[in-house]
């Protein structure tokens, strides 16, 4: 369980420390050097340079910062939204519960990737967003986060609803109610702590999912827009050079793979630790 966490922390640390360090050494992640294209590894460029002479290592780390930031933001936002929906549905019950759960089921039952492609390709200009803003880096980051939240909140919602249904009739909740505690207090102080464990597991696993989603969308040209680096855009550029510079394909893919597998293994380890019934059965 410590291995995946250390790997994850290591990737995060070098991704966030790398670009400022590179800038201090005078290497910019978007710095083009056309005289030095597709260079092999050297002392000044440990992993060589890409098709525009940009340093691959610094770009890899800068891309990691973008991918990890998106993944963390989206996973946390999806967990927060899902928790809210799950608490409301589970606690209020009745008609609200039925409506919210139908919505959750409907989203789970959709072919998500094709639909996300459509949403990612939307022309924000037609929605009234000024063109300069619609093409800015911030919007392309925000767009991916929103898309990931849109499909990601359902897991947390289901988990939290289930746990809320179980917990809401327990004696300590009834006791709190009879002492005059309000609904927000009961939800926050008495019900939420009881669903925290599975919620943390689900959020950890979803970080990996978002990284994969971001990389696919960016790879298809619908996510992060060049010249901003992300692991997906780097792979998208590398695809055309696959015969002449195969290493450019290997590096970003390996980073995605390592990060996602670390998230998944860590989530799995957490789940086994939290899951008492499993421990008892063994």
């Amino acid at each position: 369980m410590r291995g995946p966490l250390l790997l994850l922390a290591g990737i995060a640390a070098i991704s966030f420390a790398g670009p400022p360090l590179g800038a201090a050494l005078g290497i910019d992640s978007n710095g083009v050097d056309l005289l030095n294209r597709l260079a092999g590894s050297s002392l000044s460029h440990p992993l060589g340079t890409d098709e525009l002479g940009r340093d691959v290592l610094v770009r890899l780390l800068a891309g990691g910062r973008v991918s990890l930031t998106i993944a963390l933001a989206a996973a946390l936002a999806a967990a927060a939204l899902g928790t809210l929906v799950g608490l409301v549905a589970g606690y209020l019950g009745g008609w609200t519960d039925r409506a919210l759960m139908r919505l959750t089921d409907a989203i789970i039952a959709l072919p998500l990737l094709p639909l996300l492609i459509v949403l990612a390709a939307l022309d924000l200009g037609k929605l009234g967003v000024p063109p300069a803003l619609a093409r800015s880096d911030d919007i392309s980051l925000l767009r991916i986060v929103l898309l990931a939240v849109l499909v990601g909140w359902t897991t947390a919602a289901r988990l939290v609803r289930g746990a809320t249904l179980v917990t809401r009739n327990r004696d300590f909740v009834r006791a709190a109610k009879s002492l005059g505690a309000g609904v927000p207090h009961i939800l926050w102080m008495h019900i939420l702590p009881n669903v925290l464990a599975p919620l943390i597991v689900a959020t950890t696993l979803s970080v990996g999912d978002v990284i994969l989603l971001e990389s696919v969308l960016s790879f298809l040209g619908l996510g992060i827009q060049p010249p901003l680096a992300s692991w997906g855009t780097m792979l998208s550029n590398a695809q055309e050079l696959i015969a002449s510079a195969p290493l450019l394909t290997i590096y970003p893919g390996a980073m995605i793979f390592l990060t996602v597998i670390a998230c998944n293994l860590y989530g799995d380890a957490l789940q086994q630790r939290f899951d008492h019934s499993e421990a008892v059965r063994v």
Partner: protein
Amino acid sequence: MIRFTAIRLVEIAATVLVMSFVIYAVIGLMPGDPIDLMRQADPRMSAADVVRLKAVYGLDQPLFARYLEWLRQALAGDLGYSRLFAAPVWSALLPRLGNSLVLMGSSFVLALGLALGLGTAAARRPNSRLDAAINLFCFAGVSMPTFWLALILILVFAAGLGWLPASGVATAGTSDLGDRLAHLVLPVATLTLASIGGYTRYVRAAMKEALAQDHVRTARAKGASEARIILHHAMRSAMIPVTTILALSFGGLVSGALVTETMFAYPGMGKLIFDAVMGNDYNLALAALLLATIATMLANLAADLAYGWLDPRVSYR
């Protein structure tokens, strides 16, 4: 059961209706405009022509009126004309659907077969070295970006070794079965490696639970052979959740594999959806996305029904 199915079918119909409007509206928000595209292609077109064409195609109508008109025609079986294929939507759709069925079907059979073996082997000795190795393999498969796996397979087997073709469904001008199969190898391998991890984890969990049940212990006490215990006694109850995945994957048969098909230029439904969306082919994109939605939702219903049918303890009121 009949009541449950009927209610679900009504819900699916309602969801599909809502989705058809949402997709219709959203597709209109994509970059580009069909009339603008015509105008770029033909410099002799005047502003008056644009207005006239918009009226001809009903593009001067409000969104909802246009949608109702589309819906009326779609319900009558007319899905319109595909700009990209220069053919009616149906005749563009059907061959791709067949290609996707072949691709997804063969990779599904392969992945499920391997997963049954691996999952059972892991479940027989939980926490053994073999179990840990299979577990790591599963996580590797789930964590691998599909397009990266495809790129690496192309790099090694097509660009490097030159053993297999990297794209398409057959070499132009040949109708040889061996040639078609060779074109299937890399996409099927990609899809199988990408999906086998999830399946194996399902099989392992189901098998582990099945092997812990009383009737399996009784069979063991009777002196039944290990093969008989696994195949006859445990596999039966383990197949319940496995059947659920089987039913769920029917949705994928129709919607295809967007990334894998695009990577290998394999003309299936996934690539069709991507091309239609990117190429401003509104009619085709709308029809393909709706078909994928309907298939996925029906597959979910089938999974629920199969679960209830196989396991008498589950009841749907």
